[in-house]
């Protein structure tokens, strides 16, 4: 059975990631800032690990062309290969993979045939990513699918097509490793969940509680201005304003969210008259944070023990 293994992997945001994945569907919860994009690129063999190893069936994909040929990847940063039109770019990618199918048939299977004659330079960023996902999902017999936020291009590609293709690959014995920033996306992708939090990897048992969505209720005399400012803040996943002086601000981590709200209000000289946390209740949040802290503590202790042992 195939196995993807990360061994003491440190690269950019990632710190000492050690994990292994076998055939089936796996979801990695976390944002790009947590290192999901980097981990997917390393798994796909498009990045050389600065420290540690990435092994697919015992072989490093970065330095082995045959291993890379068995990988279907969809990375955080995607640009199509140079060509006159989209069909040309897809055809070159298929040639590079040793796939004799026509570009049109591959695009058609994902419902993207209408892009075939479009110039590559004329594609919007999301459209180019959708084509890249289509190329990845067209792989005939992948051992590994390493996909960064595959549901981010839903709307251009049908969600059912993506989910059904991933499920069928998982059942066929491939390792399907997808990342998801939103818990709803992770739930839709299904499979075993693990998480990355600021570069630290947490196994499935520790992944879920700490990453629950958090909502802050903010009262301010200038809700419109504050909402506009917060809608661009990286730690804020959503802002709701139903009129009046109250704003609902959503995010994934209490401290960062609260800090972001206060910092943005201060930067715009906007007064906040009240700031309180909405559901989930404080107890649940405290439990979640305690769970994360416990996991972090145990992880640090086990690493310390490993160092002390001869």
């Amino acid at each position, binding site marked *: 059975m195939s196995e993807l293994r990360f061994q003491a992997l440190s690269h950019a945001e990632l710190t000492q990631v050690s994990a292994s994945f076998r055939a089936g569907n796996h979801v990695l919860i976390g944002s790009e800032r947590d290192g999901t994009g980097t981990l997917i690129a390393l798994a*796909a*063999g*498009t990045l*050389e690990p600065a420290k540690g190893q990435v092994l697919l069936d015992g072989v490093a994909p*970065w*330095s*082995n*062309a*045959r291993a*890379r*040929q*068995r*990988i279907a*990847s969809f990375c955080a940063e995607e*640009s199509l*290969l*140079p*060509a*006159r039109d989209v069909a*040309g770019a897809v055809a*070159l*990618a298929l*040639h*590079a*993979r*040793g796939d004799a199918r026509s570009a049109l048939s591959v695009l058609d299977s994902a419902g993207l045939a209408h892009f075939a004659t479009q110039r590559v330079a004329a594609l919007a960023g999301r459209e180019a990513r959708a084509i890249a996902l289509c190329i990845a999902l067209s792989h005939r017999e992948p051992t590994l699918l390493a996909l960064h936020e595959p549901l981010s291009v839903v709307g251009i590609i049908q969600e059912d097509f993506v989910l059904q293709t991933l499920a069928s690959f998982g059942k066929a014995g491939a390792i399907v490793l997808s990342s998801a920033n939103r818990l709803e996306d992770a739930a839709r992708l299904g499979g075993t969940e693990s998480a990355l939090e600021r570069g630290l990897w947490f196994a499935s048992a520790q992944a879920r509680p700490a990453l629950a969505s958090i909502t802050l209720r903010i009262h301010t005399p200038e809700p419109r201005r504050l909402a506009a400012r917060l809608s661009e803040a990286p730690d804020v996943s959503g802002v709701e304003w139903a009129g009046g002086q109250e704003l609902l601000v959503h995010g994934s981590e209490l401290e960062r969210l609260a800090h972001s709200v206060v910092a943005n209000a201060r930067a715009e000289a906007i007064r906040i008259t009240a700031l309180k946390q909405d559901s989930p209740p404080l107890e649940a949040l405290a439990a979640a944070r305690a769970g994360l802290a416990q996991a972090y503590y145990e992880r640090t202790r086990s690493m310390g023990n490993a160092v002390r042992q001869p």
Partner: protein
Amino acid sequence: MSGVGVGWALARERLRGLSAALILLLSAGAAFVIGVLERRSDARSAPDDILSGTVFGIALPLLAYLVSERACDGKRLERSVDGVARYGTNRRAALLGVLLASALYTALAGALLTIAALLGAHAWHSSSLSADLRASVGIALITGVVYALYFGAASLLGKRGTGRKWALIIDFVLGAGSSALAAPWPRAHVRNLLGGEPVVALSQASAWLALGAIGVVCVTLSVLRTTE
């Protein structure tokens, strides 16, 4: 399609475009006009002057540099094939394809510049025109190939292949001499082939060999320094 073929196709797509053709045509036009001006100034030395000065001294190295920069997409040589390597193409094979395409484009561009320059520098009914064309086009072809391989290998250095720029400057500065310091650089041997001052008293036959050796060393270095 083999890995070399994929690399070739990748470089061909990067090199295609109106701007590349326009630059080549403008360069050829400029070489012709300078050739005509040289002939009006001194008809006997015009062909030698235009070849050793404008064509092989300035235009061809610059064109080779620009072709290499574009074929590598402004990146390091081995990074320039990452786009196809992710799909399972061997980086070394793809890199050979990229080098092959840039060598062919540079050689053809060099030949075109040489023809344009000689047509300008020679009188239309000159008896020496055809012989000069045969000899010079041969030199242009090998010079184009060697410069492409030279800039390709230099692209292995620097964060975004900035080694290319240094290679151009070093070739201009050190290749202009005739001491042993000039021996590793293409310019010195090209000058010898054109009838100029030889490097450390090497014969013209040795200059062909030296250029070939520089090309082989550059390809070998490029392949060896690249991960599969």
